[in-house]
């Protein structure tokens, strides 16, 4: 199972993890497949992690966040923002606002199966060297992601036992 926890960790690194503490509740899990409901104050949702579904070409991920004023959908190819209202000052408009990967992808000094790994490594180095502020993803965020992973694994173990 060690490899599967590493994979889950990779999946989880892409989560928005700003909340201080997230509770996850077991719904279903079997080996590499895990589905968890969570809630934290006013935030609630479902997290589905799977590394064995061969109908997906991996890595594949998709987030859908539904809020009072709209919705955000993010996947490998695009970020899409749907607004219920027309904001005055930020360049977005009512309805769908789409931003494709080709609009914001940045080249890296070395690309290996995605630019994210080098980007993350360089950001870390630059933050240590004082060239970045290190706030894009903090140790707090990392810890929160680890907690979510831990709960997934715990739930999984309970299910298996």
């Amino acid at each position, binding site marked *: 199972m060690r*490899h599967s926890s590493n994979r889950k960790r990779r999946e989880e690194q892409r989560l928005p993890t700003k909340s201080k503490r997230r509770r996850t509740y077991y719904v279903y899990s079997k080996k590499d497949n895990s589905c968890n409901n969570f809630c934290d104050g006013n935030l609630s949702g479902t997290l589905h992690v799977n590394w064995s579904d*061969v109908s997906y070409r*991996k890595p594949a991920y998709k987030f859908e966040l539904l809020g009072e004023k709209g919705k955000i959908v993010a*996947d490998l190819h*695009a970020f899409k923002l749907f607004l219920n209202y027309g904001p005055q000052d930020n360049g977005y408009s009512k309805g769908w606002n789409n931003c*494709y990967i*080709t609009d914001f*992808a940045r080249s890296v000094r*070395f690309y290996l199966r995605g*630019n994210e790994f080098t980007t993350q490594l360089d950001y870390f180095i630059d933050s240590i060297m004082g060239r970045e502020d290190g706030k894009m993803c903090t140790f707090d965020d990392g810890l929160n992601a680890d907690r979510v992973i831990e709960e997934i694994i715990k739930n999984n173990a309970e299910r298996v036992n």
Partner: protein
Amino acid sequence: MDRIIFGDNQFFGINHMSEEKAQAQSERFKDINAIIKVIDTAYDCGIHAFMFNTHDRVAELCDHFRANPGKYSDLRLYPSMPYAHKYANAVNEKGMIGALNDFVFADRSAAQVLGTLARGAMSIVSQDMVKVMKLLVDAEMRMFKGLNVRAVFLQNIVTDLLLGLGAKTVFVEFANHIRSTYGVDAAFNSMNMPKLVNFLLDCDIENPIVCSSINKAGYFMNPDIESYEKLIETKPFRPMAMSILASGAVSPREAVEYVARQKNIKSIVFGASSKNHIEETKRMIDEYDKVA
């Protein structure tokens, strides 16, 4: 080197523009006859060169080509290997160590290999890896038996991993093996064209064939578009351009114009699913080449 080579990503649910489109293509091309129909369209339109990943479905296609030698008498293939997802799935099934045992270290356990590494006997491991690499290449090439293969590509995930490791021996041995066994040049897909070309030249692999994303938007060009342009202009190698449309960020006309005006680019790889797109792209490349 063929000027226009037809790629196969669209047949296997790979689309860098949208998940939905990838899904739709995956459904459409579930039927091998749907793939054959598109290939025939390209072939009839004068594109006789195809780059194929060593996907299981390609083995079926190759059976079809062999069964119809008259129809595909001028077929020219550029296999690209390995189809990494095959191995990724093995890792998912058996874990990293299990997959390594299966594919790389054969009958030696990972513990034995790690023990060997710890003792500093790197050369033994390297020799094993080269032997296994040749076995894997031969296994992947089996599906193309009897067909006209023009060059054999190392797929970019593997190329770039080996490049990162600085594995000179593996590159040289791969190139030698392809030349001696299949009588054609080894070629390389990479997302880091400048680094790779300089590395291959350092390895004394002369005039290497390197296929990378080359497009006006600079998309998937690492470290940057300027390094690519300079490299293509000054270094002795055979560049092949893929992703010229940058997943839709560049219009077809601009895309072809950008690539065609760089005279040293030998080939253009593109994939499409509709007759219109195939014909339009082919026509535009021909037009720009005529002007050049």
